[in-house]
Protein backbone atom coordinates (compact mmCIF):
# COMPACT_ATOMS: atom_id res chain seq x y z
CA UNK A 1 0.00 0.00 0.00
CA UNK A 2 1.42 3.33 -0.97
CA UNK A 3 1.39 6.57 0.97
CA UNK A 4 -1.07 8.22 -1.39
CA UNK A 5 -3.70 5.55 -0.87
CA UNK A 6 -3.22 5.67 2.88
CA UNK A 7 -3.61 9.43 2.80
CA UNK A 8 -6.82 9.38 0.77
CA UNK A 9 -8.24 6.61 2.93
CA UNK A 10 -7.55 8.70 6.01
CA UNK A 11 -9.33 11.62 4.37
CA UNK A 12 -12.29 9.31 3.64
CA UNK A 13 -12.42 8.43 7.31
CA UNK A 14 -12.28 12.07 8.37
CA UNK A 15 -14.91 13.23 5.88
CA UNK A 16 -17.13 10.30 6.84
CA UNK A 17 -17.01 11.50 10.42
CA UNK A 18 -17.74 15.07 9.32
CA UNK A 19 -20.80 13.93 7.36
CA UNK A 20 -22.16 12.33 10.51
CA UNK A 21 -21.34 15.31 12.71
CA UNK A 22 -22.81 17.94 10.40
CA UNK A 23 -26.40 18.87 11.10
CA UNK A 24 -27.24 21.30 8.35
CA UNK A 25 -28.66 19.21 5.47
CA UNK A 26 -27.22 21.30 2.65
CA UNK A 27 -23.73 21.36 4.09
CA UNK A 28 -24.05 17.67 4.77
CA UNK A 29 -25.03 16.99 1.18
CA UNK A 30 -21.97 18.83 -0.04
CA UNK A 31 -19.79 16.85 2.35
CA UNK A 32 -21.47 13.68 1.12
CA UNK A 33 -20.46 14.66 -2.40
CA UNK A 34 -16.88 15.21 -1.25
CA UNK A 35 -16.93 11.80 0.42
CA UNK A 36 -18.05 10.21 -2.84
CA UNK A 37 -15.35 12.05 -4.74
CA UNK A 38 -12.69 10.80 -2.33
CA UNK A 39 -14.12 7.29 -2.55
CA UNK A 40 -13.89 7.50 -6.33
CA UNK A 41 -10.21 8.43 -5.98
CA UNK A 42 -9.69 5.43 -3.70
CA UNK A 43 -11.44 3.18 -6.20
CA UNK A 44 -9.22 4.40 -9.02
CA UNK A 45 -6.21 3.80 -6.81
CA UNK A 46 -7.25 0.21 -6.08
CA UNK A 47 -7.68 -0.40 -9.80
CA UNK A 48 -11.45 -0.33 -9.92
CA UNK A 49 -12.24 2.23 -12.65
CA UNK A 50 -15.72 0.85 -13.28
CA UNK A 51 -16.77 1.32 -9.69
CA UNK A 52 -15.05 4.69 -9.54
CA UNK A 53 -17.02 5.94 -12.54
CA UNK A 54 -20.28 4.69 -11.03
CA UNK A 55 -19.50 6.29 -7.73
CA UNK A 56 -18.70 9.56 -9.49
CA UNK A 57 -21.92 9.55 -11.47
CA UNK A 58 -24.18 8.33 -8.67
CA UNK A 59 -22.47 9.53 -5.51
CA UNK A 60 -21.43 12.99 -6.64
CA UNK A 61 -24.22 13.81 -9.08
CA UNK A 62 -27.39 11.75 -8.75
CA UNK A 63 -27.62 11.36 -4.99
CA UNK A 64 -26.73 14.99 -4.10
CA UNK A 65 -29.19 16.17 -6.72
CA UNK A 66 -31.96 14.08 -5.20
CA UNK A 67 -31.05 15.24 -1.73
CA UNK A 68 -31.00 18.92 -2.71
CA UNK A 69 -34.36 18.59 -4.44
CA UNK A 70 -35.79 16.90 -1.37
CA UNK A 71 -34.36 19.59 0.91
CA UNK A 72 -35.96 22.22 -1.31
CA UNK A 73 -39.31 20.44 -1.17
CA UNK A 74 -39.15 20.08 2.57
CA UNK A 75 -38.34 23.74 3.03
CA UNK A 76 -41.22 24.63 0.74
CA UNK A 77 -43.55 22.55 2.90
CA UNK A 78 -42.27 24.16 6.04
CA UNK A 79 -42.64 27.65 4.58
CA UNK A 80 -46.19 26.92 3.49
CA UNK A 81 -47.04 25.58 6.90
CA UNK A 82 -45.72 28.70 8.59
CA UNK A 83 -47.69 30.83 6.13
CA UNK A 84 -50.83 28.99 7.12
CA UNK A 85 -50.12 29.47 10.79
CA UNK A 86 -49.88 33.22 10.34
Amino acid sequence: MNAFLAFVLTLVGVVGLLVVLTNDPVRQTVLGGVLSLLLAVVFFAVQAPDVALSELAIGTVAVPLMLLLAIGKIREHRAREEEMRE
Partner: protein
Amino acid sequence: MRRGRLIVGGLGVLLVVAAFAWACTGLHAFGHGTTRYGEMVARATVPQRAATNAVAAVTFDFRGVDTLGEEFILFIAVIGVSILLRSLRSETSEEETHIAAAGPRGSEFSRWLAAGLVGPVAVLAAYIVAHGALTPGGGFQGGAILMAAVAAIFVGGEYVVLLTIRTSATWLDIADALGAAGLVVLGFGGLIAAGTFFQNFIDKRTSGLLTGGIIPLANIAVGLEVAGALLTVVAELLDQRLLSTRT
Protein backbone atom coordinates in the same frame (compact mmCIF):
# COMPACT_ATOMS: atom_id res chain seq x y z
CA MET B 1 -35.28 8.39 27.21
CA ARG B 2 -32.75 9.75 24.78
CA ARG B 3 -29.90 9.17 27.14
CA GLY B 4 -30.90 5.57 27.49
CA ARG B 5 -30.82 5.21 23.76
CA LEU B 6 -27.39 6.74 23.47
CA ILE B 7 -25.99 4.45 26.16
CA VAL B 8 -27.53 1.33 24.63
CA GLY B 9 -26.61 2.40 21.11
CA GLY B 10 -23.12 3.47 22.07
CA LEU B 11 -22.42 0.19 23.79
CA GLY B 12 -23.85 -1.67 20.82
CA VAL B 13 -21.81 0.25 18.27
CA LEU B 14 -18.65 -0.30 20.32
CA LEU B 15 -19.27 -4.04 20.49
CA VAL B 16 -20.09 -4.33 16.79
CA VAL B 17 -17.10 -2.24 15.78
CA ALA B 18 -14.82 -4.26 18.03
CA ALA B 19 -16.07 -7.52 16.53
CA PHE B 20 -15.77 -6.20 12.99
CA ALA B 21 -12.28 -4.82 13.58
CA TRP B 22 -11.21 -8.05 15.22
CA ALA B 23 -12.39 -9.98 12.18
CA CYS B 24 -10.54 -7.57 9.90
CA THR B 25 -7.25 -8.16 11.66
CA GLY B 26 -7.69 -11.82 10.76
CA LEU B 27 -8.03 -11.09 7.05
CA HIS B 28 -5.26 -11.48 4.52
CA ALA B 29 -2.89 -8.52 4.30
CA PHE B 30 -4.10 -5.76 2.00
CA GLY B 31 -2.77 -6.33 -1.48
CA HIS B 32 -2.95 -10.12 -1.44
CA GLY B 33 -6.54 -10.58 -2.49
CA THR B 34 -6.08 -13.25 -5.11
CA THR B 35 -8.80 -15.88 -5.27
CA ARG B 36 -9.06 -18.76 -7.68
CA TYR B 37 -12.58 -17.69 -8.55
CA GLY B 38 -11.53 -14.16 -9.49
CA GLU B 39 -8.54 -15.41 -11.41
CA MET B 40 -10.51 -17.97 -13.40
CA VAL B 41 -13.11 -15.42 -14.34
CA ALA B 42 -10.51 -12.84 -15.34
CA ARG B 43 -8.68 -15.42 -17.42
CA ALA B 44 -11.87 -16.57 -19.14
CA THR B 45 -13.02 -13.11 -20.15
CA VAL B 46 -10.90 -12.55 -23.23
CA PRO B 47 -10.79 -16.03 -24.74
CA GLN B 48 -14.39 -16.97 -24.00
CA ARG B 49 -16.25 -13.73 -24.34
CA ALA B 50 -13.97 -11.66 -26.59
CA ALA B 51 -14.63 -8.82 -24.16
CA THR B 52 -11.78 -6.99 -22.54
CA ASN B 53 -13.56 -5.64 -19.47
CA ALA B 54 -13.68 -8.49 -16.99
CA VAL B 55 -15.91 -6.54 -14.62
CA ALA B 56 -18.50 -6.10 -17.36
CA ALA B 57 -18.21 -9.80 -18.16
CA VAL B 58 -18.89 -10.69 -14.52
CA THR B 59 -21.72 -8.21 -14.22
CA PHE B 60 -23.55 -9.14 -17.38
CA ASP B 61 -22.48 -12.67 -18.15
CA PHE B 62 -20.91 -14.77 -15.39
CA ARG B 63 -23.16 -13.29 -12.72
CA GLY B 64 -25.76 -11.72 -14.95
CA VAL B 65 -28.69 -12.80 -12.78
CA ASP B 66 -27.44 -10.65 -9.94
CA THR B 67 -27.59 -7.68 -12.25
CA LEU B 68 -31.06 -8.69 -13.34
CA GLY B 69 -32.25 -8.72 -9.74
CA GLU B 70 -30.49 -5.49 -9.02
CA GLU B 71 -32.06 -3.77 -12.04
CA PHE B 72 -35.41 -4.77 -10.67
CA ILE B 73 -34.50 -3.33 -7.30
CA LEU B 74 -33.94 -0.02 -9.04
CA PHE B 75 -37.04 -0.41 -11.16
CA ILE B 76 -39.32 -1.22 -8.25
CA ALA B 77 -37.79 1.43 -6.03
CA VAL B 78 -38.81 4.00 -8.60
CA ILE B 79 -42.31 2.56 -8.71
CA GLY B 80 -42.24 2.82 -4.93
CA VAL B 81 -41.19 6.47 -5.08
CA SER B 82 -44.04 7.18 -7.50
CA ILE B 83 -46.46 5.45 -5.13
CA LEU B 84 -45.12 7.25 -2.09
CA LEU B 85 -45.11 10.69 -3.67
CA ARG B 86 -48.51 10.44 -5.30
CA SER B 87 -51.03 13.07 -4.47
CA LEU B 88 -54.42 12.03 -3.32
CA ARG B 89 -57.45 12.99 -5.31
CA SER B 90 -58.69 15.52 -2.79
CA GLU B 91 -55.44 17.43 -2.92
CA THR B 92 -55.28 17.86 -6.67
CA SER B 93 -57.13 21.16 -6.99
CA GLU B 94 -55.09 22.87 -4.32
CA GLU B 95 -51.92 21.69 -6.01
CA GLU B 96 -52.98 22.95 -9.40
CA THR B 97 -53.43 26.47 -8.13
CA HIS B 98 -50.02 26.24 -6.55
CA ILE B 99 -48.46 25.42 -9.90
CA ALA B 100 -50.10 28.39 -11.55
CA ALA B 101 -48.77 30.66 -8.85
CA ALA B 102 -45.23 29.32 -9.15
CA GLY B 103 -44.58 30.51 -12.70
CA PRO B 104 -41.21 30.39 -14.43
CA ARG B 105 -38.05 30.35 -12.38
CA GLY B 106 -34.33 30.10 -13.02
CA SER B 107 -32.29 32.61 -14.99
CA GLU B 108 -32.12 32.76 -18.75
CA PHE B 109 -28.41 32.12 -18.63
CA SER B 110 -28.57 28.96 -16.56
CA ARG B 111 -31.20 27.61 -18.91
CA TRP B 112 -29.03 28.15 -21.97
CA LEU B 113 -26.00 26.77 -20.22
CA ALA B 114 -27.88 23.64 -19.25
CA ALA B 115 -29.29 23.19 -22.74
CA GLY B 116 -25.86 23.62 -24.25
CA LEU B 117 -24.32 21.02 -22.00
CA VAL B 118 -26.87 18.35 -22.75
CA GLY B 119 -25.68 17.45 -26.24
CA PRO B 120 -22.02 16.72 -25.44
CA VAL B 121 -22.85 14.92 -22.19
CA ALA B 122 -25.44 12.74 -23.90
CA VAL B 123 -22.89 11.75 -26.55
CA LEU B 124 -20.38 10.96 -23.84
CA ALA B 125 -23.00 8.84 -22.07
CA ALA B 126 -23.79 6.93 -25.23
CA TYR B 127 -20.08 6.32 -25.79
CA ILE B 128 -19.62 5.00 -22.27
CA VAL B 129 -22.61 2.67 -22.59
CA ALA B 130 -21.52 1.37 -25.98
CA HIS B 131 -17.97 0.58 -24.90
CA GLY B 132 -18.97 -1.14 -21.68
CA ALA B 133 -17.64 -4.52 -22.75
CA LEU B 134 -14.27 -3.09 -23.67
CA THR B 135 -13.32 -0.20 -21.44
CA PRO B 136 -14.30 0.98 -17.99
CA GLY B 137 -17.89 2.10 -17.92
CA GLY B 138 -21.08 0.65 -19.25
CA GLY B 139 -24.77 0.81 -18.63
CA PHE B 140 -24.64 1.94 -15.03
CA GLN B 141 -22.14 4.71 -15.54
CA GLY B 142 -23.46 5.87 -18.90
CA GLY B 143 -27.04 5.80 -17.68
CA ALA B 144 -26.18 7.84 -14.63
CA ILE B 145 -24.25 10.36 -16.72
CA LEU B 146 -27.13 10.66 -19.17
CA MET B 147 -29.39 11.26 -16.22
CA ALA B 148 -27.08 13.99 -15.01
CA ALA B 149 -27.28 15.68 -18.42
CA VAL B 150 -31.04 15.72 -18.55
CA ALA B 151 -31.30 16.65 -14.91
CA ALA B 152 -29.22 19.69 -15.73
CA ILE B 153 -32.02 20.94 -17.98
CA PHE B 154 -34.56 20.21 -15.29
CA VAL B 155 -32.71 22.19 -12.73
CA GLY B 156 -31.53 24.84 -15.16
CA GLY B 157 -35.01 26.10 -15.74
CA GLU B 158 -37.98 25.01 -13.80
CA TYR B 159 -40.26 26.56 -16.38
CA VAL B 160 -39.00 24.19 -19.04
CA VAL B 161 -39.45 21.39 -16.59
CA LEU B 162 -43.10 22.02 -16.08
CA LEU B 163 -43.62 21.81 -19.80
CA THR B 164 -41.35 18.88 -20.49
CA ILE B 165 -42.03 16.61 -17.56
CA ARG B 166 -45.73 16.76 -18.01
CA THR B 167 -45.30 15.09 -21.34
CA SER B 168 -42.16 13.12 -20.61
CA ALA B 169 -42.96 11.60 -17.22
CA THR B 170 -44.88 8.79 -18.83
CA TRP B 171 -42.05 8.24 -21.28
CA LEU B 172 -39.52 8.13 -18.48
CA ASP B 173 -41.54 5.46 -16.75
CA ILE B 174 -41.73 3.52 -19.98
CA ALA B 175 -37.98 3.85 -20.61
CA ASP B 176 -37.38 2.57 -17.10
CA ALA B 177 -39.71 -0.39 -17.60
CA LEU B 178 -38.31 -1.10 -21.08
CA GLY B 179 -34.80 -1.25 -19.68
CA ALA B 180 -35.88 -3.68 -16.98
CA ALA B 181 -37.86 -5.76 -19.45
CA GLY B 182 -34.95 -5.71 -21.90
CA LEU B 183 -32.68 -7.43 -19.44
CA VAL B 184 -35.20 -10.20 -18.68
CA VAL B 185 -35.82 -10.63 -22.39
CA LEU B 186 -32.08 -11.15 -22.86
CA GLY B 187 -32.29 -13.79 -20.16
CA PHE B 188 -35.17 -15.49 -21.95
CA GLY B 189 -33.24 -15.20 -25.21
CA GLY B 190 -30.54 -17.35 -23.67
CA LEU B 191 -33.17 -19.83 -22.54
CA ILE B 192 -34.75 -20.10 -25.97
CA ALA B 193 -31.67 -19.91 -28.18
CA ALA B 194 -29.13 -21.73 -26.03
CA GLY B 195 -31.14 -23.67 -23.48
CA THR B 196 -30.17 -21.89 -20.28
CA PHE B 197 -31.56 -18.75 -18.74
CA PHE B 198 -29.22 -15.82 -19.23
CA GLN B 199 -26.87 -17.79 -21.45
CA ASN B 200 -24.83 -15.58 -23.73
CA PHE B 201 -26.48 -16.67 -26.95
CA ILE B 202 -25.05 -14.15 -29.40
CA ASP B 203 -21.84 -14.73 -31.32
CA LYS B 204 -19.09 -13.20 -29.21
CA ARG B 205 -16.42 -12.75 -31.78
CA THR B 206 -17.89 -10.05 -33.92
CA SER B 207 -15.44 -7.23 -34.07
CA GLY B 208 -16.04 -3.67 -32.99
CA LEU B 209 -18.69 -2.66 -30.51
CA LEU B 210 -20.70 -5.85 -30.84
CA THR B 211 -18.05 -7.92 -29.16
CA GLY B 212 -19.02 -9.87 -26.08
CA GLY B 213 -22.37 -11.25 -27.25
CA ILE B 214 -25.16 -10.06 -25.02
CA ILE B 215 -22.90 -7.82 -22.95
CA PRO B 216 -23.35 -4.69 -25.11
CA LEU B 217 -27.09 -5.28 -25.34
CA ALA B 218 -27.34 -5.74 -21.59
CA ASN B 219 -25.38 -2.52 -21.19
CA ILE B 220 -27.87 -0.66 -23.34
CA ALA B 221 -30.82 -2.07 -21.40
CA VAL B 222 -29.19 -1.15 -18.11
CA GLY B 223 -28.29 2.31 -19.39
CA LEU B 224 -31.90 2.91 -20.39
CA GLU B 225 -33.11 1.59 -17.07
CA VAL B 226 -30.70 3.56 -14.90
CA ALA B 227 -31.25 6.82 -16.77
CA GLY B 228 -35.02 6.36 -16.82
CA ALA B 229 -35.18 5.37 -13.18
CA LEU B 230 -32.99 8.15 -11.81
CA LEU B 231 -34.71 10.75 -13.96
CA THR B 232 -38.11 9.59 -12.78
CA VAL B 233 -37.01 10.01 -9.18
CA VAL B 234 -35.63 13.46 -9.91
CA ALA B 235 -38.80 14.43 -11.74
CA GLU B 236 -40.97 13.16 -8.90
CA LEU B 237 -38.95 15.03 -6.32
CA LEU B 238 -38.76 18.14 -8.44
CA ASP B 239 -42.45 18.40 -8.83
CA GLN B 240 -44.68 15.90 -7.25
CA ARG B 241 -47.68 17.91 -8.32
CA LEU B 242 -47.17 16.44 -11.75
CA LEU B 243 -48.19 13.08 -10.50
CA SER B 244 -51.76 14.13 -10.08
CA THR B 245 -51.99 14.62 -13.80
CA ARG B 246 -50.87 11.09 -14.45
CA THR B 247 -53.03 9.02 -12.20
